[in-house]
Every structure is written in structure tokens, then in C-alpha cells.
């Protein structure tokens, strides 16, 4: 297995773990944590391909990853702000209980 394949497998595993967390935990914050893990796995993918792909001097993968980090930060801020807001109304962060949109 080439190094690239190794990194990609790690990224895939991390992604799967993050997805499992997002899909199975009750707490909203843990869903956000899962999402962060998924984002990071994607970043790893990007950097690995930048490193082992053609034309690394073009810095495409690196740039992509940097911007991804920036956006992820913004998204985390807003998302957690929303969770806090929801907690204020529902007095819990239990996602199973929040089914007002049911039907």
C-alpha cells in the first residue's frame, strides 16, 4: 500500500467515525463534534493528495485546506451559537426530542 493510500485510509476511517458520531449521538453538540471530525478527515485527504499528487508547487491542495479550516471555524461558531439558542428554548440539547417538524 502506497503512502498515499495509507493516508487516505486513515482519512476514510476518521470520516466514518465522525459520521457515526453524528448519526448516533443524542446530544447536538456531539453531532457538531462529529461534523468537525468529518471536516478534518476531508482536510487530511486534501493535504495527502497535494503532497503525493502532480504539481504540488501550485499549492492548490494546501490553499483548499487552509480555507477549509477557516470556514470550519466560522461554521463551528455559528453552529454552537445555534445550539445555545436552542437550549434556551427547549432547555435540553436532546435531538430526539426536537421533532416539531415531524410529518
Amino acid at each position, binding site marked *: *500500500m502506497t*503512502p*498515499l493510500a*495509507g*493516508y*487516505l*485510509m486513515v482519512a*476514510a*476511517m*476518521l*470520516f*466514518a*467515525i465522525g*459520521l*457515526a*458520531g453524528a*448519526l*448516533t449521538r*443524542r*446530544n447536538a*453538540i*456531539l453531532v*457538531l*463534534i*462529529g461534523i*468537525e*471530525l468529518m471536516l*478534518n478527515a476531508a*482536510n*487530511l485527504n486534501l*493535504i495527502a493528495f*497535494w*503532497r*503525493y*499528487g*502532480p504539481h*504540488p*508547487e501550485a*499549492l492548490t491542495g494546501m*490553499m483548499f*485546506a*487552509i480555507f477549509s*479550516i*477557516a*470556514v*470550519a*471555524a*466560522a461554521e*463551528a*461558531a*455559528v453552529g*454552537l*451559537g445555534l445550539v*445555545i*439558542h436552542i*437550549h*434556551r428554548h427547549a432547555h*435540553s440539547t*436532546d435531538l*430526539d426530542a426536537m421533532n416539531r417538524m415531524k410529518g
Partner: protein
Amino acid sequence: MTFIFYLISAVTLAGGLLAVLLKNTVHCALALTVAFAGLALLFLKLDAQFAGFAQILVYIGAVAILVVFAILLTKGSETPKDGVYSKNWPVGLVIAAGVFATLGWAVMASVKALPNQNVAAPAVSVLDIGNALMGRYVLPLEIVALLLTAALVGAVIVAMHEKEEVK
């Protein structure tokens, strides 16, 4: 595939696993930090120094702290009565497993097509990254700046009404 690589990968994956498995939400946030750190090391191993340090600064320095703040503000440290896993959680697990299977199969099936392992490290310096940011990628940079501003303002607004409602 060096030993370093396996070690760092194991740490990262362990951090990630713990982040989704632990009962106490604060412990999950700490495990998440470990996972972020592991990822930063992987970035450094991949000769992406700037990305690695950016990861440490932003993710560990900001996002993880933010998560902890959110946990504390939402009394997330209390264990919920119904358990931590949602209804039908095996379904989620299966789906995640399916996703992993797809990705892993895609990776393994295309090993032959992937470049060989002894590619030289790219000669990239931070100066080059700075030039690129100010040159070719100046537009995304400015847009991201706008985005961050909006997110800042938005987050403040979304979280702000607490004071008024408490009265």
C-alpha cells in the same frame, strides 16, 4: 509506511473514537482535541507545515475551546436520562459502516493508479503561500474574511438574546 505514521494515525483515530463514544460530553471535547492534535502532526509529516500550525491554532485553539464553552453553557456535562445514543442508533452505525466500506473500497481498488511512494517533498515555503494568498487566491481570501465577519456577527446575534429573555 513508517512506524511514526502508524503511531500518529492510531492516536488520531483513538481520539476520534473516544470523542464519539464517551458518555461525558466534556471528555468527548478533550478527546476531540487529541484528535485535532494528531491530525496536526499528520499534516507536519506530510510537509504541510503551514496547514499543521494553522490546524493547531484554529482547531485546537478556537474550535475546541468553543465546543467546551458550548458544552458548559448548555449543561451538557449532565448525563441524559435516556442514554447518550439516539433511537435506532444501529442504523446510523450501519450507514457509517457503509460509507466507510464505499470509501475504503474505492481507495483500495485504485491503489495501482495512485502515484508511487517515493515522491520528493515539495519545495514550498511560507513565502510561497503568502504570495499565493495575495496573488492568485486573493479573492477567496477576501471572501473568507467577509464570511468570518458575518459568522462573527451572526453568532453574536444568535447567542445574544439570552440577556433580554432572562429578564
